[in-house]
């Protein structure tokens, strides 16, 4: 089976991280993958200004920005009128001490969360995934972002049911859910 190929030459990326050296590390990896157009920001506000003049195709943002929450930053992106910007894939890079913020980033509308330290393998695979796997994009009063369900199985309990889900049934057991997914 052939390996996935990515042509990132004309992809415009935006990288937001407070730490200069970490920015350098991720930027070098991305350049190694062939990304030539990379905008780099240290804060959320700086990134917003950059986005105003150039619409990136993908955004990499740290899990805990210095000047605003990452969820708020992503929420701002998701509320833009430009469709290219609203639907832009956002990959959140979270450090060890930021792991508690994963749910907030996901519920803010992130496409995927990647744990630091990031290996080139992981970063390449995640870019490949967000670029090639089409996900529905939901707009609801409480959430704007890609569909957070990765698997087509019923939610495990009523709490996470959507209004559009089938009428209430007994929640499937773990074994049933696994059998249905396979």
């Amino acid at each position, binding site marked *: 089976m052939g390996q996935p190929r990515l042509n990132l030459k004309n992809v415009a990326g935006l990288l937001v991280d407070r730490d200069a050296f970490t920015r350098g590390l991720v930027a070098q990896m991305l350049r190694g993958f062939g990304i030539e157009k990379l905008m780099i920001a240290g804060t959320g506000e700086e990134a917003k200004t950059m986005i105003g003049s150039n619409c990136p*195709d993908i955004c990499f943002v740290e899990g805990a920005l210095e000047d605003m929450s990452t969820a708020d930053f992503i929420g701002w992106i998701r509320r833009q009128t430009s469709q290219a910007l609203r639907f832009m894939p956002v990959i959140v890079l979270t450090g060890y001490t930021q792991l508690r913020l994963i749910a907030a980033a996901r519920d803010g509308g992130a496409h995927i969360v990647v744990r630091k330290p990031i290996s080139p393998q992981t970063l390449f695979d995640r870019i490949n995934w967000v670029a090639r796997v089409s996900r529905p994009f939901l707009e609801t009063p409480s959430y704007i972002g890609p569909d957070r369900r990765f698997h087509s199985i019923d939610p495990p309990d009523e709490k996470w049911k959507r209004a559009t889900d089938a009428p209430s049934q007994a929640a499937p057991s773990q074994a049933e859910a696994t059998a249905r997914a396979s």
Partner: protein
Amino acid sequence: MAALTHFPKLRITELVGRFGGVSRDEAIAQAKQELSAMRAEGNDVIEGSIKALEVIVFAPAERSRYSDDQLRQMLVLCDQIVTLAGTFEYTALDQTTRSLCDVADGLRRTKKSDIASIHVHMRAMQMVNPKAPPLGEEQIKMMLAELRKILAHHGFDQLSASADKISFEDIPAAPE
């Protein structure tokens, strides 16, 4: 507002599929090469962060207590060290710093005061700093075991256990 579902066509999807580009192996090899060129600079940054950490650790706000802001600053510095130690595969430094994060985070959440536990971690980090003389495998094992006892003594969880139970691997594969 009713719920709307869009099926957007992303520009990146069209761009990455264009003729040319790099294979996974080529891209990873190139990225690794770029990273290895940054190792010396990375060691300097780690050393600088350890020194900045020492300034906070050895000057607690009160005699027996760190302030919340000091613990927060420790976590920011440690986060950077964990990222760099992991990137450049300094396993002992990575584990020691994670342990310090777990203790500092636990102290912050529980409002407990314990300077000695932080000091012990700081000394351990100094010993596994990439610029320090390398320790033997047995010594590292023993040191990490002692650090685990501190975490157990306080009953603090590892930060990695609090990641909202999201599995990083539970993601379907992308088509080739």
